[in-house]
């Protein structure tokens, strides 16, 4: 429309000063309509999200995924085998779903890692996981360097890896440290304290503090990584999150009647734990972080940082001289351990 805003705006000279230059208009051009155009395009194309869950069996991984996405998205729910045998080695099993909410469509892929940490000797059990993650980067790279390439390269890269810490209440185990130390270099790791309803609030706070100390001591950067904060506003928001992780979560796909409302929860003889009640557990924080506020950011860090690092390593494989010329620090080159 051609409505002039001149009656509402301050005098042109004032606006000029504010804008800091001669580029100013007080008649609507319509540049900001591009936001709507982008939204339209996004709705039409839909989104992809790939989440990996890692942790010993029995820590409630499947239940948590179902709770996060309010539907039966975990592999167990889909395949419905009565008894699942723990595999002898770590397997990687992924399953995809099309979900839709208010016109927004998403292809969600949940990647399960049965067998992790379940053996007597768990040496190198991170290797298959590392390989899987790198294989997805490789697939993307292969498509990207094709001459005839797809309009939209299918994205199977792992955007986020949720690591389940057993609620011992003491400190991280060597396996936890080893895994997170290695994987945090190639993927966004979100550690969570599983089955947190076995910890009191004081135990929980103590445990969390201990974990954060150990992560710091081992140089492990979990999501949101400090070095990728974009600006002061980002840093402020992310600092608050960093002071709260790992989130102590409880999962449930059962609803119970609490105070006249139907809520997701776990019913015990001594009370009902409300999953989405932040006084009970931190599930809501995890959900907000992963889905409602930082989902795009998680994907961006995967594509513009983790994937790019993989690509640099890969393209440099026969050429360390070029690496030095491009100023790639040594530790990035050697992070590709198997």
């Amino acid at each position, binding site marked *: 429309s051609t409505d002039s805003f001149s009656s509402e705006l301050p005098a042109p000279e004032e606006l000029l000063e504010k804008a800091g230059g*001669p*580029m100013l*208009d007080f008649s*609507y*051009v319509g*540049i*900001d*309509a*591009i*936001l709507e*155009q*982008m*939204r*339209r*395009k*996004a709705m*039409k*194309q*839909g989104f*992809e999200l790939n989440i990996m869950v890692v942790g010993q069996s029995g820590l409630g991984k499947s239940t948590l995924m179902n709770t996060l*996405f*309010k*539907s*039966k998205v975990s592999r167990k729910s*889909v395949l419905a085998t009565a008894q699942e045998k723990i595999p002898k080695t770590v397997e990687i099993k992924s399953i*995809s*779903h*099309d*979900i*839709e*909410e*208010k*016109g*927004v*469509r*998403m*292809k969600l*892929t949940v990647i399960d890692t049965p067998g992790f940490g379940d053996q007597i000797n768990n040496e190198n059990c991170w290797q298959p996981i590392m390989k899987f993650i790198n294989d997805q980067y490789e697939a993307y790279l*292969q498509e990207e360097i*094709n*001459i*005839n*390439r797809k309009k*939209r390269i299918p994205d199977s890269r792992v955007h986020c890896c949720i690591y389940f810490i057993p609620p011992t209440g003491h400190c991280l185990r060597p396996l936890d440290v080893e895994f997170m130390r290695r994987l945090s270099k190639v993927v966004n790791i979100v550690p969570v304290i599983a089955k947190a309803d076995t910890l009191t609030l004081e135990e929980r706070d103590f445990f969390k503090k201990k974990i954060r100390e150990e992560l710091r001591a081992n140089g492990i950067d979990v999501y949101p990584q400090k070095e990728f904060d*974009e600006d002061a506003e980002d840093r402020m928001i992310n600092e608050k999150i960093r002071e709260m992780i790992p989130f102590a979560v409880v999962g449930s796909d059962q609803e119970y009647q609490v105070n006249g409302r139907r809520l*997701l929860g776990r019913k015990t003889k001594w009370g009902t734990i409300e999953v989405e009640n932040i006084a009970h557990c931190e599930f809501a924080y995890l*959900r*907000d972080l992963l*889905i*409602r*506020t930082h*989902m*795009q950011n998680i994907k961006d860090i995967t594509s*513009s940082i983790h994937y790019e690092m993989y690509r*640099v390593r*890969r*393209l440099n494989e026969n*050429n360390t001289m*070029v690496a030095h010329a*491009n100023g790639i620090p040594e530790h990035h080159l050697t992070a590709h351990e198997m």
Partner: protein
Amino acid sequence: MVEGMGEGARGVPLSGHVGFDSMPDQLVNKSVNHGFCFNILCVGETGLGKSTLMDTLFNTKFEGEPTQHNQPGVTLKSNTYELQESNVRLKLTVVNTVGFGDQINKEDSYKSIVEFIDAQFEAYLQEELKIKRTLHSYHDTRIHACLYFIAPTGHSLKSLDLVTMKKLDSKVNIIPIIAKSDAISKSELAKFKIKITSELVSNGVQIYQFPTDDESVAEINSTMNSHLPFAVVGSTEEVKIGNKMVKARQYPWGTVQVENETHCDFVKLREMLIRVNMEDLREQTHTRHYELYRRCKLEEMGFKDTDPDSKPFSLQETYEAKRNEFMGELQKKEEEMRQMFVQRVKEKEAELKEAEKELHEKFDRLKKLHQDEKKKLEEKKKSLDDEVNTFKQKKTAAELLQNQAQQAGGSTTLKRDKERKN
């Protein structure tokens, strides 16, 4: 179903609000923080009001003075401006063709435009092929829209227009517009538009079609497609109409209001170019025109799609290596040609020298002949002269004798002697 998403995904219903419906907002917020960029190329003869139209479209005064008409060739001048509207920051680049249509011989006019467009694609390709790259902060200079200004003759497209548009249609989104359309009457305009459209079609020129696959904008876009080319009028001067100040051009016989849809198509152009399809223009540039350029360039360099098992080579290095090889070959060819040329020159020189030598010899021979002749003639002359002298001497001697005889005998004897002698 879900567009563009792979196989093997099943649809599951959600039993409550999850919250990923905020994804479009998250995406938009990220883009807002980042800012947008949009690059427009204006192609058209000098004096068709390109700069004024840009000023009118974006409601601002871009720098620059009107260009002279005596440019020796077509150059492209680009200027970048930072615009802001509410929370949207736009980095707008306007590229102008300076001197287009001014030369006597316009055969090569389109070349600098094509080169410019290709150069922007090349720059992006280089960045994309780098080992350590920063694509998300790269300032994209690729041309998203090309406004082609058609002179308001009222008859048909000029051949320069057809040739240029044909060369550009596979490289950029072309939006043809009739410039200074207040020079044409309404009825002539309708005929003009039909003529232009049919000429474009019959010459196979692909102009940009506003997309009709999204229901929310399909209707307005398809209507607008039928109004192409847009007949525009630009003006940054304001005239009071009623109780409002409007952008207009004032004539003694009336006032043309820029934003009045019955006067010209300016509003349609603004609507399509900025308010509805800016994002689609950017996407088409990236997914269609750039991909085509990239594909052709890589194939030209001799790359082929390798099979899935082989390792990815460093595209950048191999690209550089191939390019050097290519350049090397070019140089070698150039060298060969130069050698051949030098050789030919030598041969020709030798031939000419031979010919020259022969000529000299011939000349010498002739000269000698000439000299011989001359000598002979001189000898003959000498002998003749001698004869003459001898005769003279004899004559003198005879006269002497006669005189002596006369003095001794009388005049009759002389006569008798004379008669006797004759």
